[in-house]
Every structure is written in structure tokens, then in C-alpha cells.
């Protein structure tokens, strides 16, 4: 391998990350509409397609995001006459960037050894990865607030205010809900957390975050959805009343806010997978050093069957497992969005400050006590 291989590997990782983030955001906008249709006994968008050699290929309407992108890019970009032009123009970028870079610390596969060198399937391996995630994702509130402030529109202002209050409230809960896991695993690095989830309780129950901290999972997912301002916490948007902080935006600038929301859905799915559902771990699939019966990576089932599949196959299966879990949680978030009605603004605040925050604190204290007792 040449000296440039580490850089190539890094570029490859960034490529995979962008594919998972940006490449999935478009289909997600289609999935949102199509899935809601399926839930509500409708058909949904299924017409956009290609006409090749006299035949029409619609592929269930999967090309709708493409048509939407063309529409948004070619639309007139209107700016309110009294808007602050600089802040107005920069707001969509500020909203989109944090969503994009958060995924950098999420590992999407196990480490691979090439020529004696270890390479992680992760764009950035930062020791304080979880802190990085919260640091970056809290920046997203700036984009939203700027958009609301710079639009010179009362409705956008209201939306921006609501969004900032809501995002700041749930930020605290979200951070605290994960601290229990940090206490148990003793690391802030996402890939190390995933590695910790590789063993099994009693030989059969995977040591996934959800089995270690079930309450924390519910709190985290709730706070994360609130953080992303999606139904049932979509007060910042409130489609039926104030439309929200991006009410004055048109064309692709609106599209960027839209994209940020869907990329955040993917990031939340990635975080949930990494923290609570074993990341790239597959139940009973272990590395050679993890079990005495193995000479190379393979499955050791609780009933004693051993099935060795080799390191390469294990890596591929684990990457596939991560993508599968990621897609499942994207689906699950859309499912929640089309199941629940919207909270009132005061209800959101009460739920955040008076229910979830104390609950996460109690969870943290109990976890700390248990960890201390078991030491």
C-alpha cells in the first residue's frame, strides 16, 4: 500500500458518510410522503419517472426528489425588502452545516486491518466524540434563530423564538440522557461505545444500550425529535398556523432548511443506532479474540452452535447491519411523525423541563449509584 492510502481511506469514509447523509436525505423526502400515504390509506407520489425508449420507468416515484430539486433550484429566490440580507442569506447554511458534520463521529463499520495498519470506518475519531456531537448540534439553533430574525416577518420571528426556546430546553435533557451510558462504558468515543456493546449478558442478550439504559433511550429519542423540531414537537414550524422561521424563504434556500431537517433525521437515526442499538454490532457475531471457540470472526449462538464466516464477511455484514439499523430508525421516526398529534407550546415546555429533565437526572443519579456499587 502506498503512503497515500490513509488519505484515500479518509476520502472513502467521507464519501460513505456523504452518501449516507446527503444521498439518503433526498429519498427520505419521498419516503416521508409515500409512507404517510401508506399509513393514511392513500397512494402517494408515484408518478415522477424517466421516459426511455418509449417506456416509462417510475420506480414507485423514487425520482420525485430529483424533480423537487430541479423545481427548487429553478424557482425565483425572493428576499423580503426589509430583511437583513447578509444574515438572511447565511441562515440556511448555518442550519445545514451542523446537521452535515455531526455524522462525522458516527462509526459505520468495525475497524479493518490493512497491511498491519488499523483503519476505522469513521470520518473523525475524536476522543470526546459525544461532546463534539452536542457542541455541533447546538449550533443548529443559530441557523433557525437567524432565519427567524433576519426575515423581517412576524411569523418567522415567532417561529424562530419558539425554535430557539425549544432547542435549548431539550439540549439539556438530551445531553443528560446519554450521560448514564457514558458512566457505564467509561468513554466518550462513539466507536469505543459500540465496541463495548459487543458482548452479551448471560451469553444471549446483546449488551446494547437499550438493554442497559431503557429509560434513557426513550428520553433520548424524545429529546432528539424535539431537537429536530419534527411532529409532535413542530411548534417552530406549525404548518397549520405560523409556518415558521422559514416562511419568507423560497427556492433552494428553503430547500436547504428542508434538507437539514432530513439529514438530522438520519443523524438521529445514526446516533440512536450507535448509542442504543449496538452500532455496527450484530448479535452473536464476534471477533476471533472474543471467544475461545473461534479462530476467525464468526457467530457463536447461545445454544452452542459456532459458525465461522471470516473477517471480511464479518465486516461486510456489520456494515450492512449498521445501514439496516440506520434505515430502520429513519423509518421509525417517520412513523412517529405520522402517528402523533402536535403538542401545544406550553405542553412542550412542561414536558421538557418538568418531566424529561428530572427524569433524566434521576436516571443519571441511579446509574451513578449502581456503577459505584458494582465497582
Amino acid at each position, binding site marked *: 500500500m502506498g503512503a497515500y492510502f490513509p488519505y484515500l481511506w479518509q476520502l472513502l469514509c467521507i464519501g460513505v458518510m456523504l452518501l449516507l447523509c446527503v444521498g439518503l436525505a433526498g429519498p427520505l423526502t419521498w419516503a416521508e410522503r409515500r*409512507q404517510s400515504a*401508506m*399509513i*393514511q*390509506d*392513500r*397512494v402517494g407520489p*408515484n408518478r415522477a419517472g424517466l421516459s426511455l425508449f418509449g417506456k416509462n420507468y417510475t420506480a414507485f416515484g423514487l425520482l420525485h426528489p430529483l424533480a423537487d430539486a430541479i423545481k427548487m433550484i429553478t424557482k425565483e429566490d425572493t428576499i423580503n425588502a426589509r430583511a437583513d440580507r447578509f444574515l438572511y442569506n447565511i441562515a440556511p447554511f448555518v442550519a445545514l452545516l451542523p446537521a452535515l458534520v455531526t455524522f462525522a463521529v458516527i462509526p459505520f463499520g468495525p475497524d479493518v486491518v490493512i497491511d498491519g495498519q488499523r483503519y476505522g470506518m469513521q470520518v473523525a475519531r475524536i476522543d470526546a466524540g459525544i461532546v463534539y456531537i452536542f457542541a455541533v448540534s447546538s449550533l443548529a439553533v443559530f441557523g433557525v434563530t437567524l432565519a427567524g430574525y433576519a426575515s423581517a416577518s412576524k411569523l418567522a420571528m415567532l417561529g424562530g423564538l419558539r425554535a430557539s426556546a425549544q432547542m435549548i430546553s431539550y439540549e439539556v435533557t438530551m445531553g443528560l440522557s446519554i450521560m448514564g451510558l457514558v458512566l457505564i462504558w467509561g468513554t466518550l468515543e462513539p466507536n469505543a461505545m459500540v465496541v463495548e456493546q459487543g458482548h452479551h449478558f448471560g451469553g444471549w442478550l446483546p449488551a446494547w444500550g437499550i438493554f442497559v439504559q431503557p429509560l434513557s433511550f*426513550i428520553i433520548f429519542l424524545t429529546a432528539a425529535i424535539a431537537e429536530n423540531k419534527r411532529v409532535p414537537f413542530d411548534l417552530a414550524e406549525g404548518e397549520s398556523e405560523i409556518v415558521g422561521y422559514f416562511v419568507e424563504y423560497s427556492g433552494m434556500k428553503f430547500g436547504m432548511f428542508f434538507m437539514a431537517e432530513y439529514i438530522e433525521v438520519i443523524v438521529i437515526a445514526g446516533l440512536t443506532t450507535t448509542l442504543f442499538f449496538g452500532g455496527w454490532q450484530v448479535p452473536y457475531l464476534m471477533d476471533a479474540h472474543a471467544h475461545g471457540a473461534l479462530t476467525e470472526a464468526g457467530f457463536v449462538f447461545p445454544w452452542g452452535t459456532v459458525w465461522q464466516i471470516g473477517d471480511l464477511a464479518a465486516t461486510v455484514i456489520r456494515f450492512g447491519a449498521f445501514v439496516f439499523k440506520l434505515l430502520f430508525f429513519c423509518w421509525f421516526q417517520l*412513523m*412517529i411523525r*405520522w*402517528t*402523533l398529534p402536535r403538542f401545544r407550546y406550553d405542553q412542550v415546555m412542561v414536558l421538557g423541563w418538568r418531566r424529561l429533565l428530572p427524569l433524566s437526572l434521576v436516571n443519571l443519579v441511579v446509574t451513578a449509584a449502581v456503577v459505584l456499587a458494582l465497582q
Partner: protein
Amino acid sequence: MGEVKQGKIEIAHVSREIPPQEKLFVPGIVEGLGATVRHFFKNVFGGKDKYTQTIEYPDVKVEYPHRFRGMHRLVPREDGAPRCVACFMCQTACPARCIHIVAGETEDHNIEKFPVVFEIDELRCVVCGLCVEACPCDAIRMDSGFHPKPVYSRDDADFGKSDLLAVLGRDEAKSGGVRDKTAPPATAAGTGRVDRADGDGGAGGAAGGYEHAH
């Protein structure tokens, strides 16, 4: 609910407190998710059992009922000319005033008049079918089984005599139009009457009255 007794109304006190299990939200959310997930999977993988009832119109078309009133058509005689005798019955009956007829005189004394112009403005038509009811000759029908085609300009919605003659009926043999030239007229030319397979009465008789014209 309070029970109503003689001379006295009992008031039931209903607690507005939300029970604790509902305050938790989680059981309610699980129940709701159950319903939406059931609909989702049945609609995606359910095949024939799915809840979705949508008929995807341009790809899938529903057969209209037998008596569906569609695009008008003029019923031709055996020689291809319309049966219409320009009596103005349909134009008079039309509540939307969408039929425009200009009558002309024929050589044939049995027929006397024919439509020089017979126009229907399908944009004005309210599809009531009164013209069909009014026609004494069974010359105008709405049994084509399809809608008037969309047009690009309002003028194109005025369908003339040749357009209306070109429209075919959905089930011609049954309702008795004699278009098939190989089929001989059923009765003698002397009475001038054509028997209809389904005997649709007066209209058929009236139309048959001009049968020996050619």
C-alpha cells in the same frame, strides 16, 4: 351519564383528571404506532387485502355503468347521414342551450328536413340527457361511454355534425342502431318500419319511418 328521574335531574360528575397511565404517553404512543404500523404494512405488503381503495385513474379505468351519459353522438341511417330531421326538439329541451341546429330542406318528402349545422357545445352541456329523451327519431344518444375529450380552445369544444357522427356507441347492436350494412332490414319497406331487437318503442318506430328513403 346521569339518570333522569321524575321531577329531578341527577348530575353526573365526570372527572377531567387524566389517568396516570395516559400521562406517561408511552402506552398511548405504542397503541397509536400499532395502528399506523398495521396500516403501513397492510398497504405495502397486503396485496389484495390492503386498505387503500384508490383507483389510479389514467392507468386503471373503471368501467362506467351501462346507462352512463357520456359524449353525445348522432346516430346514422344506413346511408351514413344522421337520422336527425332538424325538428329542434332537443335544442328546445336543452336547459343549457348548448345545441345549435340550422335546418335545411331535403329532396326526400318523407324526411323533409335535415340539419345543415348540428353543433353541441360540450363545455356548456350539463349532461342532463334531456336531448336524448326529447328526440323523436332516436337520432341523438349519449351512450358512447366516454367523456368529451379535453380541448385546447373553447372553439374546439363545439362538436359539429361529422364529429358527432364519428362517435360510436358502446353497445350498438343491443340498442338497435343499424350500422352494419350486411344486416338486412328486418321488415318490409312498405310499412317503412324497422323492428328493433330490443323493441325500444316509439323512437325506433319514428326513425324507421324514413327507412325507404334510399
